């Protein structure tokens, strides 16, 4: 069971590696258990999700058909720490939907993206109909979903589906470097920042501003905020404790 998804945690950074392609319900169960565990572990300050081999995460609809009623995006979207997708190869169907549930997407130059469900008489079933329009705008999102078109990493970058493209051999290292840097930051600020963005987008602007303000003043009670401001004044690197 454990070999389907590998989890390694080092100095506040969790690295989740998907080792089954195409993904199935077993992988989804294991991923859900891992995300649950990470959410209870306040020592975890950032996570990287990556695939193994030539693909990031493949198309489950082709493999399992309409019966494939499992979700990879739900547990990942529930993670309260920042999540970086290291898209080492193609992200098709549910694989792309998984990437959409992450906060920052770094893609290999050779990676391809598509949501081909329509070709099998289906629609995306793991969140893309909601997350993709919110990410790249309604027009580009609906075009991708209605045509099943395959796009390159450069096109994905251009439309804002990923935030950077690097050579395939560097993807994981770039993501790990970003993850390690985040793991050195104030963990409650990272979590509250993410919470303010996502919850805020589901609310009116005025309600979102209220939420941001409440979370901001709650952070006034943390030692890390004091350390952050002090270190800036003293022109030294901050030492955050997650408190």
């Amino acid at each position, binding site marked *: 069971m454990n070999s389907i998804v590998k989890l390694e945690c080092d100095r506040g950074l969790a690295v989740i590696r998907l080792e089954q392609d195409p993904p199935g319900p077993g992988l989804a169960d294991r991923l859900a258990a891992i995300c649950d565990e990470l959410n209870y572990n306040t020592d975890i300050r950032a996570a990287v999700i990556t695939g193994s081999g030539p693909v990031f995460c493949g198309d489950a609809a082709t493999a399992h058909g309409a019966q494939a009623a499992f979700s990879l995006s739900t547990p990942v979207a529930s993670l309260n720490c920042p999540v970086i997708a290291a898209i080492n190869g193609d992200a098709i169907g549910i694989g792309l939907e998984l990437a959409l549930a992450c906060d*920052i997407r770094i893609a290999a130059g050779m990676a391809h993206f598509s949501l081909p469900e329509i070709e099998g008489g289906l629609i995306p079933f793991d969140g893309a109909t909601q997350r993709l329009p919110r990410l790249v705008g309604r027009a580009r999102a609906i075009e991708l979903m209605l045509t099943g078109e395959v796009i390159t990493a450069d096109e994905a970058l251009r439309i804002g589906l990923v935030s950077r493209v690097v050579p395939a051999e560097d993807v994981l290292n770039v993501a790990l470097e970003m993850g390690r840097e985040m793991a050195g930051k104030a963990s409650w*600020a990272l979590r*509250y*920042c993410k919470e*303010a963005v996502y919850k805020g987008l589901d609310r009116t602007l005025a309600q979102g501003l209220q939420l941001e303000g409440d979370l901001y003043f709650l952070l006034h009670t943390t030692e890390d905020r004091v350390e952050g401001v002090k270190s800036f004044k003293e022109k030294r690197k*901050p030492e955050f404790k997650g408190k």
Partner: protein
Amino acid sequence: MEGFETIIFEKKGQLALITLNRPRVLNIYNVRMRDELYEVLSAIESDSDVHVAIIRGAGEKAFCAGADLSEFLSAPAPTFARHVRWHRDVWGLFLNLPQPVIGALHGYVFGSGIEMAMCCDIRIASEDAVFGLPEVALGFIPAAGATQTVPRAVGPGHALDLLLTGRRVGAQEALAMRLVNRVVPRNDLQVEAEKLAEKIAGYDQGAVRKLKQAVSRGLDLPVGSHP
């Protein structure tokens, strides 16, 4: 508007010009600037002669390089600080101004600087502009709306890439992610901003104000006609 320390407020025909004026400290935002900005914005809000406002930074180096951290940690208890935040809601006032506001952005546009820029309706950046949200690296989160205004402008992906990493982006990258509307040479920034403002100021002001309201309030509402 006499006796201001941190802001210059001028009226030029139908335009209101707000200049953040602490150039020696890169126009960083402090409590005094908050209070003066509140006064200026209140005056603009109720002035029907002002058709369009422009906000810009004095000096060569920055629009606004963030908040004045020397005032941090001396603030009142979080309970009282929260009370003050909403008692004089300068950002709510800014975002709800009836007139269009144009941000003319140059040099450093960090933290509160980005947040002020995002309260504007149209953002013009000069080629030397650099953007960044360093709050998380300092152990807190933005508090002048960036977690809400930035994702609404550029989507959650680009927004979190800026917010969670604190990385800096130049004018061209800011344009590509639609953080700004256009990029112009440094020497043309003021002229371009005023040209645009004059153009909008020449239209029927009832229509201009209703248009701004339809867009900003409409984004909070469902469209309503669906399959």
